[in-house]
């Protein structure tokens, strides 16, 4: 028994891609290697750290915990979808900058995408709701206070 190959169609940051993927290929590898979107990071590769968080059909998911073939027909949004290199930053990105919500920056793309789904569901979250929303995202610099502030600022709920 060996590999199987599957044609898939996936929309990433609004752009439709047709690719053939191996059954065993992880979504994060499709994004980083096949589509050259390196903004999605691989941290633990075991579903614990959330660095690889992307948005799939409006929900935050860990892209190391989903097969690429399972993204067939889905719409994926990565950190590159928030703003282009020559565009002004997305309000969440701008808030992260203002609040020094990144130190090494490794967790930032995952934090941004988790926060994005939170604000889409709940535009004015309390601090407790923000903290719960990023429970699946680990910051190895332990800079959580500024991250929570930045998300609340972007939502207009920072006191």
């Amino acid at each position, binding site marked *: *028994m*060996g*590999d*199987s190959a*599957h044609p898939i169609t996936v929309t990433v940051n609004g752009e439709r891609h047709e690719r053939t993927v191996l*059954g*065993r*290929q*992880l979504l994060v590898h499709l994004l980083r290697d096949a589509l050259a979107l390196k903004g999605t990071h691989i941290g633990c*590769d*075991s*579903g614990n750290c*959330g660095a690889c*968080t992307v948005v*799939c059909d409006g*929900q*935050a*998911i*860990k892209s*190391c*915990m*989903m*097969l690429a*073939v*399972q993204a067939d027909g889905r719409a994926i949004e990565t950190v590159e979808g928030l703003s282009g290199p020559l565009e002004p930053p997305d309000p969440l990105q701008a808030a992260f900058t203002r609040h020094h919500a990144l130190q090494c920056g490794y967790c930032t793309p995952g934090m941004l995408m*988790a926060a994005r*789904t*939170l604000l889409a569901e709940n535009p004015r979250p309390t601090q407790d709701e923000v903290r719960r*929303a990023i*429970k*699946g*995202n680990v910051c190895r610099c332990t800079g959580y206070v500024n991250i929570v502030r930045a998300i609340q600022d972007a939502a207009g709920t920072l006191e």
Partner: protein
Amino acid sequence: MLLPAFEYARPESVDEALAELGRHRNARVLAGGQTLLNALKLRVVQPDVLVDVSRLEELRGIHAGGDGGLRIGAAVTYDELAGSPLVREHHPATAAMSARLVDRQVRARGTIGGNVCLADPTSNFPPLLVALGASLSVRGPDGSRDVAAEDFFVAPYLTAVRPGELLVEVRLPPLASGERVGYESLQLGTDSWALARASALVRCNGAIEHARVVLGCGPVPVRQPAMEAALRGRAATTEAVEAAAELAGEDFEPPTDVHASSEYRHAMGKVMAARAVLAATREER
């Protein structure tokens, strides 16, 4: 990490999924994948074929019977359980528990069927389903059979689902008038595995008329008949419930590991049992 080589199959129906499972001796069912993908990475499992049931409409529904009982498809995610108006109305404790599981990314993908078929001794759902008196509908090449939650969990990571079979539905009986559900768990931190867990279904009309108490984190979830009998007819006071919980721990054999000794988990099982019963008597609807 590269996963081991396997064939991926996405059947269009439960019948097709069963045919795939029947064709390959070494096949695995993929639902949300929130444990299975890690098990593949670690080479704990090396299936020839992965049968993806996560999109099967037949497994994706939540239906209420006229009596308030619920039929929950095996591929319903934690998010869908938490957000379902039917679950929130008829089984509010189950919805509330689902809303707090792990983290939002896992809740978006993880499924109730995957959870119970993994049969991780530290999971939330197994003791809860036993306390609720749930039954699980399993389909195989020869048709369907219903397995009581109490009989479903056979050993750690082993269930009554046999090779070639598929869990299709989890059925929650309606809560009777006055029946409430409580669950409590002891964790070292918010993200750690539970050391001890308890779920309780209690019918209380002034005094406790009936209680079903289940301990989790042993090899399989276990009912606590001596504690249940001691609760019957008693007022739901902290003193009475804690006294009854002294009798908890029957057939509860949690492991000793780096997190805690078996003795400690056993002692904490009693505390969780008391708290779960008290939570059930005080649950707001």
